[in-house]
Each structure stands twice: as C-alpha cells, then as structure tokens.
C-alpha cells in the first residue's frame, strides 16, 4: 500500500503572457483592437446610448422626441403588465435554464456513459442529434405545430389523446396556468438539445481512467456522476447556465408565435412587452425604458455569473 501525501502548497504561479512583447509595445495591440472597438461603438454603444436617451422622451417614432423627464420610469414602477412580464421571466428561467441544464446533464451523462458504452457511439450521436433538432427548427414552424397540438377543442392532438382515456378537452392556451405551463414545456423541449450537445462535447475531455479508478474503488454511477462528471465539466455548466439565462430573459419568438402574451396578458414577457410598446402602440420612449431595464438585468446577471465562475476557478487553481 502506497501512502500518497499531499505536497506542500506553493504559491500559484502567475500566468505568463503567451504572446512575446515586440518592439511595438502595447500601442500595437490597440491598433489591432481598433476595428473591434469601432464595431462595438456603432453596433452596441451608440444604440444603447440612444435607447437610454429615449427613456426620458415621449416619441411616436417620427417628428422630434419630447423630453418628459422620469415619467416613463415612474410609469414602469406602477405598471402591472411590466411586473407580470418580469415575473414570467422567472418562470422562463425555470423552463429554459434550470430544467434543461439539470436534464441535459443527466441525458448527456447517460448518452456518454451508458448508451455510448452499451450500444456504441452511433446510437449516442443519433440520440444527441434528436435532442438538438428543436434548436434548429424555426420557432414559427414549432409554434404552428404546438398550436395544433394544444388546440382547445377536440380537434387538438393532445385533447384527442386525453379523450381516449376519458379526460375532457382543456383550453390549454386560453386559460391560466395552463397557457404558461404549455409555454414552459415548449421551452424545455426547445432548450434541452443545447446543454446536451455542450455537455457531451465536454465529457470527451474527461479521462476515462478516472471513471475506471472510481469504479475500482466501488463508486456507483451516481457517485461517479457527481464527483467526476459534474466537477470536471463545471466550466461548461457555467457557460450553458449563463447563455440560457440571458436567452430566457430575452425570450420573444415563442411567446409571439404561440400565445401573443395572452390570455389577458398572462404570458407577457419583457421583450414582447417592449415590442408591443415600440411597434403597436408606438410608445417608443416607454418601450425603450422596458428594453433598458431588460438590458440592465441581463448585464447584472452576466457580471454575477462571470464573477462567481472566476472566483470558483481561482479557488480550484489554488487547490482549495
């Protein structure tokens, strides 16, 4: 029996720059970054500034905007539809982040570890592609199909199937909470493929010897999953969680196609609400205010995620 002892902890070495410093010095880098900065300025920063400017204006899209101070922001605070839309964002995060990430992790591990081993890589790849299919399906097409499935009367496929077992037809999209639940189920279906593909790619870099060693030590599948799989692919879990959270906050297409925010505004989400204010009511200033709040929330969420990830990586590197 060999006793493995931990070496004395040493200071984490500072990372050396990979690119040698040339004679041009730091100034040369800025030159290369210039095109990127110009694009950032034109595509992101100027529109963002214009958007923030519009939050203090009343504007119908043509003629000059009229300065109204904080009126749009005050309206926002007491606007029930706005708060409903942000509450629905929380449900969207559950449907587009929490459930798909957990399910995706389990499915990826099963495909990689069980299906892949027992039935070969081809079956695993086929199933992975199947899960990914909703991601490449245009949302309008998906929406039409979903609409057909959940039609309220007995023509709807779902209601017909329920009818076979004696359950009466349900007006799925016409009432709460079923409309929101249908939307959430659709989003789980749409989103699931993304984490599965990312996690399966991540699992490729897990050393099989780790699993073998754990198996020899008597670890069962759940223990191997939690101790090895989740631990090693943590960076990918962060990426998936961050990108999906941003997607959930910005979700628009499925709401537009499937429920249009109905019934009675119950499935309203911020992006669709902003769209309504921009394009149908022509309250550009108020639409811009909703969009600005959405942007602020997305930026805060991103910063929090990145900071947490960085701090965890630093701890890991330090061997804590």
């Amino acid at each position: 029996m060999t006793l493995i002892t931990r070496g004395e902890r040493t200071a984490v070495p500072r990372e050396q720059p990979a690119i040698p410093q040339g004679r041009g010095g730091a100034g040369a880098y800025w030159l290369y970054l210039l095109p990127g900065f110009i694009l950032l300025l034109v595509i992101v920063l100027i529109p963002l500034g214009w958007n923030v400017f519009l939050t203090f204006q009343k504007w119908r899209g043509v003629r000059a905007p009229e300065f109204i101070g904080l009126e749009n922001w005050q309206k926002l605070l007491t606007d029930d539809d706005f708060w409903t839309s942000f509450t629905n964002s929380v449900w969207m995060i559950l449907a587009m982040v929490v459930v798909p990430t957990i399910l995706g992790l389990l499915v990826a591990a099963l495909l990689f570890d069980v299906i892949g081993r027992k039935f070969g890589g081809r079956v695993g790849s086929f199933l992975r592609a199947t899960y990914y299919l909703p991601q490449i399906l245009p949302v309008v097409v998906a929406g039409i199909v979903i609409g057909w499935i959940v039609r309220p009367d007995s023509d709807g496929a779902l209601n017909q199937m329920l009818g076979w077992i004696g359950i009466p037809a349900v007006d799925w999209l016409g009432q709460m909470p079923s409309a929101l639940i249908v939307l959430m189920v659709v989003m789980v279906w749409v989103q699931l493929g993304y984490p599965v593909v990312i996690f399966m790619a991540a699992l490729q870099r897990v050393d099989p010897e780790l699993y073998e060693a754990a198996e020899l030590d008597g670890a069962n599948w759940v223990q191997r999953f939690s101790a090895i799989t989740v631990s090693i692919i943590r960076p990918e879990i962060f990426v998936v969680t961050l990108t999906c959270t941003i997607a959930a906050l910005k979700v628009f297409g499925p709401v537009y196609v499937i429920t249009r925010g109905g019934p009675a505004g119950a499935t309203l989400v911020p992006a669709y609400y902003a769209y309504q204010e921009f394009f149908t009511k022509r309250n550009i200033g108020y639409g811009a205010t909703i969009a600005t709040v959405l942007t602020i929330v997305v930026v805060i969420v991103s910063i929090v995620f990145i900071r947490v990830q960085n701090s965890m990586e630093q701890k890991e590197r330090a061997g804590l």
Partner: protein
Amino acid sequence: MARTNRRTKLLAGLAGLTAAGVALVGCAPSGGDEEDGQSLRLWHYEGADSAMGKAWAEAITIFEEETGATVEFEEKSFEQIQKTASQVLDTDAAPDLMEFNKGNATAGFLASTGLIADISDAVDEYGWADKLAPSLQTTAKYSDDGVMGGDTWYGVPNYGEFVGVYYNKDAFADAGLEIPTTYDEFVDVLDAFVAKGITPLAEAGAEYPLGQLWYQLALREGDRGFVDDYQLYKNPVDWQGPVITSATETLAEYVDKGYIADDVSSIKAEDAGVSFINGTAPIFVSGSWWFGRFVAEATGFDWTMTAFPGADLSLGSSGNLWVVPENAANKELAYEFIDITMRPEIQAIIGNNGGLPVAADPADITDEKSSELIGTFNGILEKDGLAFYPDWPAPGFYDVIVQQLQGLITGVEDVQATNEGLGEAYDEGTADFR
C-alpha cells in the same frame, strides 16, 4: 490537396457572392429619385386571388397600356407595411403609391406626421369625391392631428367593407328556425340552438372577431353621437356608462348562456371562419372580407349574410386606402393609377369576385350572390350606418381589446374591471388627439 482546392474555391465563391451582394445593394434603385414619369413604384398587400388583387392586376395592365409607363409592383404583407411604413416613407425608398390601412392610428398617424401627401387637389381634379358616399369619405380625410373626418384628403378608397352575420341556412332549416330579422329573434335563435346542444356562434377570442362582436353590441345601444365620441373624440367616452356596460355584460352573458363556447379565448379568426365553413357553427358575426372565401369554400350548404339584426349601425368603413407618400417621385402617375381603379370595369371586377366596390355600375355585377352582398352594403350606406372599428381610436388598442375581452370570457376580470382596463388604455392612447 484536392480538398484544400475545393475549400479555397468554396471560400472564394462565398466571398464573390458577398461582394456581389454588397455591390447589388449599392447599385439597387433607391427609389424616390427624381421624377422620371416612366415608372410607378406600387406597393399593396392584397392576395392575387382576392377581389382587389384581381382588380388591381387588371388596373396595372390598363395603366401600362395607356401611359406607356411601367409598374414596379412590390408585393408586401399587411404587417410589413403596418410596422415599417413610418420608417420607409421618411426615406428615398418610399414608393409612389401604397395601400395603407385606414383609421386614426394608421393613415391618420402618417397624415399627422407629414409622411403621406395631401391629395385634395387630385381628388378635385379627378372628381373622386363624387363617387364616394359620405361615410366612406370619413376614413379618407383627416385633420392636422390625424383624426379622421377632417377636411384634407390623404387617401382614396375604392372598395368598402362591413361586419354582418353569416347564417348557415341548411342548419337553420334542420332546426326548424327562420333567419332572424330583429335582435330578439336573433337571441331566440341562439337559445334554440343551445337547447339542441349546438354552440351557435363561431368566435375567436385571440383575434378580432370577439372585439368586433363586443363593439357591435355597443352599437346596438349607442347612436351616431356615441360613434363620434368614440371614433372622432367629440366628447369623452363614458367607459362605465350604459352603452359600454351593456355591451360588456351582454358579451359575458353570451358565454354564460352557451351562445359562445367557453374555450374560445385562444382561438384565432381563421379557426372561427373554418368552423363556419365546415358547418360546425351555424352563425358567424364577421366581416365582408370572408364573403369571397365562403363562396369558394362553404359549398356544402346554403348560406346568407345580413347586417346585424336590429342595429342601425354596423362596423365597417371604406376599404384600405391608396395613399401617396410625400417623398414619392411620380405623384402624377400615382393619381392616374388611382383614377383607373375607380373606373367601372375595375370596380366590376371587385364586385364580381366577392368584394364591395364603391363606384360600380350595378348592371355590371353579374354574380347573384355578390349582388346580394352589395345590396346589403348599399343599404347600410344609405342609412349612414358605418361605425368603423373598435380598435381605431388609439395605437395598440387592438391588443388591449383582445387582452381585456380574454380576461372577461375566462372570468379573470368582471364587467367593471374589463371596462376600466379598456377605458384606461383608450384614454391614454387618445390623449394626444384631444
């Protein structure tokens, strides 16, 4: 090596295509150039098989023959023009002539912003006003603030539309019922169908049909004064008053009594129309825009359409308008085209294909069913009975009506809360015009 070459070629091809695309964008005609008198850029969104689509295709042929100019027609969707017109019309890409939706929030908005031209002189020159009944002119003329019924012509309609009631005559005969001529008879018929286990009214809560029924119920109680207050902002609308309260209460009763299915809140207009076409629902309150479709598709039974029984006022208006963008390069050609669409032969094409022409010679209408429809429409016009549409007064009010009435029929909101929700949005949306 072969693979590398192929990849290089592919990349070169893509680069070439991109460059070509950029070049094409750069060279593409921007429109709105100096007047050349040789081409007319025309946008409209009528389907090629619709009455208006057929009529305007013929108008294009006549126009090209007579003027020697070519028509550069671009097919657009209603949504496309509705959502992007205000941006496009402000640029050199504006067409010379465009179909646009009528009403305060649409054509009125463009008129108030100066994006579409005052065409009053052309109306006088060509004598179009003489061909249009007064209630059709309302939607073509706007005030400086974009409120319809003003003094300045900003558009010309050459067809009309109204909302009435479609009846499945075979279903009525099977149930031993007569087509109703009064509101009481209408309600009796609804009760009789319900008693037989049939939900009589095809409805759609996710789109316009339910809102139109609600407004029709208000029109049953209201008069022209109510319409002027609601549509032309003559006086404030009392959203808890007897007219609107009666409409909202009656609509809620329709659901309670089973005249309307209780699961229509997510149904779209298309589905409601189809349920009439396939004979599921024997009655459908909706617009004349369905007429041509029903002629073609509701062939399994005999049907008819009348104005809403017992109402002096019906939803309806002129059809969409021809508007001339202020930045149009060839305004004179645009006027010539409008004039051709007003000719009897073009109007007859509209009338014989299920549309409602505004200036047709009755002798030219050879189709019996179309004659019946045009007769009903003319009856409404003679009574000055067009009362426009409920969503017109304020931008985005359409969505508000849909949402509020969904709330009502699903029981989320009561009558008072529904009226309150509608009233708040109406007052906010119309504040600019008062």
